[in-house]
């Protein structure tokens, strides 16, 4: 289907189903139960899942396929956001104008940055991309471009936002004044009560999820294409590839631009959910975050980056909400002294300390599971299947062996 083989089609369908039914899947606990705080089915978080999924898929195309570790990908995220907000300011709140522009502009920037950075590889490439991203951050944080032109381009540390004095030439009389797609307001959602459960279906989420599915499909096609094969060749042996007469540069540049466009699209979507663009989106910590997501999920796998993005965003929003009172509630079955001790031990890792947990987890994954969560899942799967096979094996092979043996003896 759609030019995919059977396995990939299944994967795409499974991912599609999960994204469509995400409001149900992420809300397994009734709204007023004690576990309700683990529900992730609220619009803001679900939008983040989809958006950072796109970002990580794009990053994985570059890092997973070619092995070029970019530490400056957040720059494109910021560029995407700025382009979309500028379209809000000039035309109107319809996201349709901004998103393609975000993709194009970030693609252009990626072309420039990639053309220069890709002259070097390894650690030099990482440093160059980092340098470019930090430069862009500094430029937008102090609005250097704007100071040259004499007006605001990025609006400095306040961040770019829409004011009533902006032209907005396409703005109709009855148009909503938040981001929308032909009147479909992004922040509106439809709430459904089923018994004690409450499910939220948010326009913005479904819009981003749809885009995520499309770009996920594109990523699968890139992975399976001859172009993707070339990129893998660059990762496994760059020198040999150039000896066979193929110049790796155009391929890496192409994938760098594609990956920059993914990041720009993600940034544009961020501005579509919330009509703001700030420089902090371009800071190198944001670039580090997408690296964490991709590695945690599984580098070079299709579904890994999406999983990693979901995992980190879930923990960022949910894990950080657990506090001591909640812990005391959980461990109240223990004797008093022990309860306090357990809470004391866990305390540094939860709430505001969740970064610590993330850091440790990340290190463990890098050390023991270079393939990330996906490899972990595969290993567990293999263990289960392996045991089954072992159980089956003796029964199926015994007769034949015995037969052979007896043959040989006689």
């Amino acid at each position, binding site marked *: 289907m759609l030019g995919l083989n059977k396995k990939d089609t299944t994967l795409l369908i499974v991912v599609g189903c999960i994204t469509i039914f995400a409001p149900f899947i992420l809300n397994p606990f009734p709204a007023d139960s004690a576990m309700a705080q683990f529900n992730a089915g609220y619009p803001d978080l679900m939008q983040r899942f989809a958006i950072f999924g796109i970002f990580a898929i794009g990053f994985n195309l570059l890092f997973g396929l070619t*092995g070029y*570790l970019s530490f400056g990908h957040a720059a494109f995220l910021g560029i995407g956001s700025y382009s979309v907000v500028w379209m809000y300011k000039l035309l109107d709140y319809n996201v349709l104008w901004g998103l393609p522009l975000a993709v194009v502009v970030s693609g252009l920037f990626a072309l420039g940055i990639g053309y*220069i950075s890709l*002259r*070097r*590889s*390894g*650690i*030099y490439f*990482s*440093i*160059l991309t*980092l*340098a*470019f991203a*930090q*430069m862009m951050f*500094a*430029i937008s*944080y*102090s609005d*250097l471009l704007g*100071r*040259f032109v004499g007006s605001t381009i990025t609006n400095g540390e306040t961040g770019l936002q829409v004011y009533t004095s902006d032209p907005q030439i396409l703005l109709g009389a009855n148009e909503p004044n938040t981001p929308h797609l032909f009147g479909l307001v992004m922040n509106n959602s439809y709430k459904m009560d089923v018994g004690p459960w409450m499910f939220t279906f948010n326009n913005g989420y479904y819009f981003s999820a749809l885009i995520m599915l499309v770009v996920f499909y594109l990523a699968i096609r890139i992975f399976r294409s001859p172009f993707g094969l070339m990129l893998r060749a660059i990762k496994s042996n*760059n*020198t040999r590839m150039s000896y066979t007469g193929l110049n790796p540069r155009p391929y890496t540049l192409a994938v760098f631009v594609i990956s920059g466009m993914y990041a720009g699209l993600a940034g544009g979507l961020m501005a579509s959910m919330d009509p703001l663009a700030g420089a902090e989106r371009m800071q*190198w*910590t944001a670039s*580090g975050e997408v*690296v964490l997501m991709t*590695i945690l999920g599984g580098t070079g796998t299709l579904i890994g980056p999406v999983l990693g993005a979901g995992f980190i965003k879930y923990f960022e929003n949910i894990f950080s909400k657990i506090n001591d009172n909640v812990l005391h509630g959980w461990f109240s079955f223990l004797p008093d002294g022990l309860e306090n001790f357990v809470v004391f031990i866990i305390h*540094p890792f939860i709430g505001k*300390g969740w*970064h*610590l947990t*993330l*850091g*440790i987890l*990340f*290190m463990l994954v*890098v*050390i023991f599971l*270079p393939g990330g969560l996906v490899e972990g899942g595969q290993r567990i799967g293999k263990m289960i299947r392996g045991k089954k096979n072992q159980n089956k094996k003796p029964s199926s092979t015994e007769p034949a062996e015995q037969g052979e043996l007896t043959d040989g003896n006689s």
Partner: protein
Amino acid sequence: MDAFILQILNGLDKGSAYALIALGLTLIFGTLGVVNFAHGALFMIGAFCAVTLAKIFSLSAITEDPTQKDFLGNPLKVKTPYVESWFGADVGSFMIDWAVPLAIIFSIPIMIMIGFIMERGLIKHFYKRPHADQILVTFGLAIVLQEVIKYFYGANPIPTPAPDALNGVADLGGTFGLALVYPVWRIVYFCFSLLVIGGIFSFLQFTTFGMVVRAGMADRETVGLLGINIDRRFTIMFGVAAAVAGLAGVMYAPINSPNYHMGMDFLVLSFVVVVVGGMGSLPGAVLAGFLLGILESFASMNEIKALFPGIDQIIIYIVAIIILLTRPRGLMGRKGVMEE
């Protein structure tokens, strides 16, 4: 002219910090071939060694002094730091005042220990893995160290003053007829960093141990074949590199109040410094550190800012990009280091 010299001085103290961190990074890279993203965290831990010692020294017992009364007639409560009651008032107050310089002695063993544990416990297992993995695992370690410090010391910067005697400003230009005043502590920092850099270089140049280490940097395998346990020496060098970063941090504490993410802020720039100086070249790292520090302070002059607003924040990156593209090995890079 005054402004010119002042900018050079301004650049020197930031440049010293860059140079020290870059020196440690290069030591680790040159010996072990590992790109250590946790080096900034070591710098930060060094600064927090100073904070810790200052806090320990100022721990005090509250006693009631019956001879003095406050305005309500109650006996006045007096705080006496423990060090004062143990070592006498003079020595005690001296120790409290000089906590930051004293932290140098306190921090060296700690930093070397941390370096050993890091190398033996974690980085040892990453020699055979790709550079990307090394970057990632040390990046993770940096996050963990940072969060641990944040847990114990909070997220706010902690002011750590320099000793009173070194806290003022010095009139440098008096003898030459220039109007030039400059904070004493920054001059101390610069001299200190020169001392450390000189120490490291002479250690590598004039001792047998240093000779073996240099030989190992040039050709690890041959040195190993000659029956020298090069791994152990490299571990010690990792400890030394950690100590250098720590010392840079200790002395930097009075210049900028330490906070938990100061390491990361410096690390990014230090990497740029290392790359500009040339991967694996110790003199290159020091030279690039000072050069970029001075360049940065020149770019922050008002005259230049008026021409190119905001240039001070991006000048280092622009220079790095230009140098990497025109001299791919950096200023003093050796052939064959980090080249595919």
